[in-house]
């Protein structure tokens, strides 16, 4: 049975990293960029153009929403996952987990046996 979240899969790497950053707490744009860099240990750097292009699309799809904050900086807007967004993120993780399991099983079957 296909879930609604399955319609959004697979996620692009940038989208996955954004959803992963927002999975814990609400964040503003620059913090998301920092978090993505931290998650990937500096290998994946998200530029503002790419970040906000994704946020624009994710908000239109209903996966991310803007939320209020107590931040004094008026330029900062905070974003968080919606219920749908969290479902999509979990679904993507499940899919990736399945991919990893499949890959590990496949690699195990290809491992050369000692004579």
């Amino acid at each position, binding site marked *: 049975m296909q879930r609604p979240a399955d319609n959004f899969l697979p996620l692009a790497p940038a989208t996955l990293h954004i959803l992963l950053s927002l999975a814990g707490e609400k964040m503003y744009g620059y913090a998301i960029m920092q978090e993505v860099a931290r998650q990937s240990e500096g290998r994946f750097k998200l*530029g503002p*153009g790419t970040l906000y292009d994704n946020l624009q699309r994710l908000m239109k799809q209903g996966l991310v929403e803007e939320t209020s904050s107590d931040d004094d900086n008026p330029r900062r807007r905070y974003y968080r996952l919606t219920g749908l967004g969290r479902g999509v993120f979990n679904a993507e993780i499940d899919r990736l987990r399945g991919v990893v399991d499949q890959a590990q099983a496949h690699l195990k079957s290809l491992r050369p046996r000692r004579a």
Partner: protein
Amino acid sequence: MVRWLYIRLLWAHPAEFRRRFGDEMLEAFDLSAGFRETVRLLADGLLSLSRQWILRSEFRQPAATPAYELITFQQIEPYKPRGIALTEGGLAAMLLLIGIVNAINHGGGHARSLPIGMQRFGLGLIKINRSDLEGKPAVAVEAAKDEDDPMRPFARSYFRILHVLAALDADGDLTISAAEIANAPAALRQLDRNHDGKLSAEECGFLPPGDFTGPPRLLAPHRGAFMRDNPVLAALDTDHDGEISAAEIANSPAALMALDLDHDGNLSPYEVLPHPAASHAAGIIGRFDVSDSGVIFIEGLPKDDPDIDSIRRLLIAADRNRDGLVTRGELVIELASRADMHRLRALENGTKP
């Protein structure tokens, strides 16, 4: 500079995207550090720009205008710039204006005042000596410089040839001033080379024609024409005997004043030149030069003068540079050309010019 470039990049994004994320993107740019990071963000901005315009058309919604609304003013972007942006823009415009004003002020190798009154950047813009303003009209109209007068070269030659004028015009400015008129007897007596107390035509500047070989008595008509056709000599030789006697020399100031057609106390070249057009022009200038500036302002002609229509037509034709002001030179040329045309027509019709 790089920040300015990044702001321009943001401005080039679609309005909806820019309004929604522009500030946040700029904050991310401001928080970035290092040259490589800056270059990366610029490249990211360019990529975002092309992506927004090419791939994200679904996010751009045209603004709906009610059919009943009368459009009086419409702008492409309803975005209102922030206050800091307006302040920076105003400051930049002011700096640009100051730069232009300074460049104009210091151009040409010497400082000059601007028409708007700013001489140099400071609080004391204009130095005014108010005593200079007392008793003077608020607006003064200056005539063109004499050097621009088309008749001046001719007048200079004429003053050199006619010994009487050369003697009278002591300062060589081609104008017989009131002081020079008053000193006329003494100046004229210097021309009396044979000390007989009177001035002959030769002493006044007459030269026989170059090809004349006849007896001297045949020169008498030429001498008479010389004394008669030159206005100054004709005025001084009041008895028209071909010589300027001692009495006429003594009476020369009064005789010269008869040539002062514009009654300014001086004799300009136009009042002493032999061409009738010159004296005609001097008379018109003296009659209609209400500002006493030596030129006639066509729009300022009196409307109650009985000859005003013909004078206006004459002046409009004479105003060759179409500046609304008629100088003596322009008027003389126009009158002389009309006189020549009159003579030509008379010759063609077989009548006496």
